[in-house]
């Protein structure tokens, strides 16, 4: 396992990734009113671009995801985070589609973020990195596509924060998006979700090792704070029923309680493991910036509070998916998207999938989700004139 001290290098020189550099002539104009320049976008591609350049699928990753969607992660050596969905013969079939997955701006796996080196100072950005938004992430992705000479996307897909980017893509660049798959997401972050994020941020900032955000300069790392943030967040990704099914009240490697604060229960041990393993691959300041970007997301607010106006006259086909046990982005949030799309006369499919796996269901083995994504893309592929899988 690589040392944590390696992570700044991953931020500047990501392994097993392609990098697009944007110099002073191509600054990223941020919602915060400043420009990010120079900056870089790390990304991965899978499959082959066809001659018409009409088979591109953009995958938008979630808060703690990255570009390693369908291949071994260079830090954890684990399989890609969406290998069940993306790959040869998978619903997003890399033998048919050319898949691009960029690391978002503000993240820590090679696209410019707070742990990247600021070329003006030669030191990590830290809290001098400007606050970014979901729209900024999408702008950077659009610049990447321009850089690659890709005018339009066959599909944009993503769950959670990835779904927010999908919605922003459809709103910002309707002519570039043939079909959109926003999964387990919402057009705005709820007060409850902002509250959970704030708890996570405070856990990081309360760790003395955070050092006011300057831990990289001071050879430190707020591991405990970030682990606690992850533990809290992880609970919101599951469900009461799933936790009960997986762990119940079972003890961890013992028959009786120890009458101490050890991880007596399996669920405690599991959460501690989630926290510790997360710290190995993620940067605490990135966690602050990305949760902030999600908190600020409110698509309707950009259209005088009328969500349907975000999609007026849209040519994009939508497939909205939610999960019954997702209490982070409950079905009513997806239904609000669907209502707005109906009001805009958009072509929309909407399915709610029955599962007890909670918000994380979009990343897990959900055969119904796979059937829906496959069927939706097949239908859209026919309309787009994409050749069937050879």
């Amino acid at each position, binding site marked *: 396992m690589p040392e944590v001290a390696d992570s700044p290098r991953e931020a500047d020189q990501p392994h097993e990734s392609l990098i697009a550099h944007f110099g002073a002539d191509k600054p990223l104009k941020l919602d915060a009113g400043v420009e990010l320049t120079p900056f870089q976008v790390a990304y991965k591609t899978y499959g082959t671009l066809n001659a018409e350049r009409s088979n591109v699928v953009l995958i938008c990753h979630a808060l703690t995801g990255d570009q390693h969607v369908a291949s071994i992660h260079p830090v954890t050596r684990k399989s890609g985070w969406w290998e069940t969905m993306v790959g040869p013969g998978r619903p997003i079939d890399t033998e048919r589609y050319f898949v691009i997955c960029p690391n978002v701006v503000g993240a820590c796996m090679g696209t410019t973020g707070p742990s990247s080196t600021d070329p003006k100072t030669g030191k990590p950005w830290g809290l001098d990195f400007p606050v970014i938004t979901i729209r900024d992430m999408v702008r950077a992705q659009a610049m990447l596509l321009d850089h690659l000479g890709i005018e339009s996307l066959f599909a944009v897909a993503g769950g959670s924060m990835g779904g927010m980017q999908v919605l922003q893509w459809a709103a910002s660049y309707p002519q570039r998006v043939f079909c959109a798959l926003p999964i387990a997401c919402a057009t705005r972050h709820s007060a409850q979700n902002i509250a959970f994020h704030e708890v996570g941020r405070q856990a990081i900032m309360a760790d003395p090792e955070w050092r006011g955000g300057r831990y990289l300069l001071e050879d430190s790392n707020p591991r405990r704070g970030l682990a606690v943030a992850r533990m809290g967040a992880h609970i919101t990704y599951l469900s009461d029923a799933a936790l009960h099914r997986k762990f119940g009240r079972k003890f961890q490697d013992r028959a009786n309680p120890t009458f101490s604060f050890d991880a007596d229960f399996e669920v405690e041990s599991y959460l501690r493991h989630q926290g510790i393993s997360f710290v190995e691959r993620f940067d605490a300041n990135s966690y602050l910036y990305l949760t902030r970007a999600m908190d600020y997301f409110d698509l309707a607010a950009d259209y005088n509070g009328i969500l349907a106006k975000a999609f007026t006259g849209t040519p994009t086909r939508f497939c909205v998916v939610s999960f019954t046990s997702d209490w982070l982005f409950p079905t009513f949030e997806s239904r609000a998207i669907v209502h707005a799309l*109906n009001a805009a006369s958009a072509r929309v*499919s909407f399915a709610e999938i029955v599962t007890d796996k909670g918000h994380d269901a979009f990343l897990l083995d959900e055969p*119904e989700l796979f059937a829906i994504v496959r069927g939706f893309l097949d239908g859209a592929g026919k309309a787009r004139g994409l050749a069937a899988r050879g």
Partner: protein
Amino acid sequence: MSAVSHAGSNLNVASPANASGSTRVDLVLVAQMVEYGAKVLDVGCGDGQLLRLLSETRGVDGRGIELSREGVNECVAKGLAVIQGDADTDLADYPDDAFDYVILSQTLQATRHPRIVLEHMLRIGRRAVVSFPNFGHWQVRLQLLFAGHMPRTDILPFSWYDTPNIHHCTIKDFRQLCTAIGVKMEKAVALNAWGSPLRLNAPWWFWNLFGEQAVFLLSRKG
């Protein structure tokens, strides 16, 4: 009582066709009332059979609403643009004139507010196609009259206590509703118990007695 005469000149009757394969006759009839290439909303689209038929035979741009989650997910997996929703509550979200046709196939009797649903259909769409089981059919009447229990037939197979059908109507009732809300009846077809269309020049009472189900093409008046 109705101002619209059944066999009158203002009521064109669609020419029925034989059902091909296993496709239901009433669906074929509905499909024939839809212009080629139209934009269609199918309310209560079930497993998407009609949407598929419309897409394959009439080249329509079809959308669907379905109450059952299983039906919706099956439709979406087939590549159809279908959402989970309720005819009684979700039609209000659609803007005026969003569709050329709004179809309600064998669903009217299961809605909570049939009149409001019908009004929404003709607000959202320029035309509406409605098919429903005729509760005035002689088998229904005989069961209630002689057996003394709530009727159960091939197309109304439910017991009174578990039926989704809460607003049964007869062909006569439906025509009266259309008149009451000022809807123009452009075409109508009634099918007998064997799925064959009834004689076109038969009087309305004959349709109401021998039609097991009916299909109406409606438009806004004026």
